[in-house]
């Protein structure tokens, strides 16, 4: 290990690993620091991802695929279930293996990785971020860098130390809790979503199969709801009602920042990626694929900037991200704000209209137009969503 690197990445999740990999692939020196003792653990994630989202970065591999997903099941508050078949849609991952493999690709590209290295401050030179302070084995250390890429997750503090506004409105924070349980006899190729005031107001409840009747079961609720009832109590209620004796293999809490991307995700010597940059899809709460895309863009630009010795080049990252996904997330966020206000009746009537379409004809477009025709008031809601 050296005392100076071209690029330091803070956090070894999917976004951090991709930033490290795409930077290192350009021949610059990269160090990735992870605060936990393991890369990929603990897993704070529902673990579902689209196939396309994965394969942009790594070929599909059965060792990190827990379940292959072809169908989505939407469950309305009155119990109606609308199933939509998407074909070869995606996976439920085994994140603890998946994250390892992503970090391996970063290592193969040439980056160094250290775990249990807790970054607790930044170094500055002439107003620019010039490295990090970190704690390793109880010792306080420093390491210099031309660019620091913060991939330190929902709890990110590196960005604020660099002077970027990163704190997230508590109403946009989906506080989530999830168990991985055994003996859950659901279809192993279907993602189940539950909506309504009883199960997850202003959010959704999920059951994602993980093979052999294991499943990730959890929900996220906004801080506004959490004020009155916590995610934990919602989960307890659901489990007591539906699976009172299910053996619990893992229980985890987590936060999903369901908002648009931060106003600024780069500054002198600093770039933010993944949850730290709020690059999560605000509608679905999915952040693996979008985080990897953010990491790839940031790592590539940082590598180019160092190679060309033009460090100001990293400031082009904001626009590059915005063009690839940021703008789309703004649309998703408006849709989210519309759906957040849906009543249980509205969810029920949407489910009923989907059920009228024969299952083999339920494409996303058909579902959407049918829902609209049968629920004309939806048009008003959608119009509200798109009128800024």
């Amino acid at each position, binding site marked *: 290990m050296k005392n100076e690197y071209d690029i330091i990445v803070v956090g070894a999740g999917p976004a951090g690993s991709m930033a490290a990999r795409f930077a290192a692939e350009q021949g610059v020196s990269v160090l990735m620091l992870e*605060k*936990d*003792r393991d890369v990929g653990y603990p897993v*704070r994630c529902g673990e579902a991802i689209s196939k396309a989202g994965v394969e942009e970065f790594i070929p599909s591999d059965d060792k990190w695929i827990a379940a292959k997903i072809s169908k989505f099941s939407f469950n309305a508050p009155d119990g109606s279930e609308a199933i939509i078949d998407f074909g070869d849609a995606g996976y439920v991952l085994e994140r603890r293996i998946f994250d390892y493999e992503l970090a391996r690709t970063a290592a193969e590209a040439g980056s160094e990785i250290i775990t*249990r290295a*807790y970054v607790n401050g930044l170094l500055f030179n002439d107003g620019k971020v010039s490295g990090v302070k970190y*704690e390793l084995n109880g010792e306080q250390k420093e390491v210099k860098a031309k660019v620091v890429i913060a991939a330190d*997750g*929902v*709890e*990110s*503090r590196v960005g*604020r130390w660099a002077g970027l506004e990163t*704190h*997230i*409105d*508590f109403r946009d*924070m989906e*506080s*989530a*809790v999830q168990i991985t349980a055994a003996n859950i006899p659901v279809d192993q190729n279907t993602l189940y979503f539950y909506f309504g005031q009883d199960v997850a107001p202003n959010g959704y409840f999920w059951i994602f199969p993980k093979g052999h009747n294991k499943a990730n079961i959890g929900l996220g609720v906004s*801080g*506004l709801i*959490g*004020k009155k009832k*916590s*995610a*934990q*109590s919602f989960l307890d209620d659901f489990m007591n009602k539906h699976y009172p004796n299910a053996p619990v293999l893992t*229980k*985890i*809490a*987590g*936060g999903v*920042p369901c908002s648009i991307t931060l106003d600024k995700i780069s500054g002198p010597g600093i770039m933010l990626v993944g949850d730290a940059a709020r690059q999560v899809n605000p509608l679905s709460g999915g952040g693996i694929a979008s985080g990897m895309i953010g990491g790839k863009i940031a790592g590539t630009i940082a590598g180019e900037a160092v190679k060309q010795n033009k460090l100001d080049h990293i400031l082009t990252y904001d626009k590059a991200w915005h063009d690839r996904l940021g703008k789309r997330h703004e649309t998703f966020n408006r849709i989210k704000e519309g759906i957040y206000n849906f009543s249980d009746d509205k969810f029920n009537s949407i489910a009923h209209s989907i059920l009228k379409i024969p299952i083999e004809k339920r494409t996303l477009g058909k579902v959407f137009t049918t829902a609209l025709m049968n629920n004309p008031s939806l048009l008003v809601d959608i119009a509200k969503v798109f009128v800024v």
Partner: protein
Amino acid sequence: MNYRQAKNGKLMIEILPDKCDFCGCCVGVCPEDAIELKEAEIFIIDERCTNCSKCVWSCPIEVIKFVIKNGFLFEKSFQMKKMAALPGDPCAHFV
């Protein structure tokens, strides 16, 4: 009553580290950067906390709470509300 000191008054929020999952929701919503989180270690930085309560509302598993002492619940703006009879010693968790 011997409370720790927050930025503008007494610290009215406590984290129960024994029950914490170290997920970072509270750190993400804290407007003051007043929560320190390592791998399995968490604490409030007293001199930055303003008792705004956002961490309490965002905690998915209810391990951040308003301080309860002597049967009183201290909420933000430092109003006291008498609690219904509490089982056991409500002070047991707190420093």
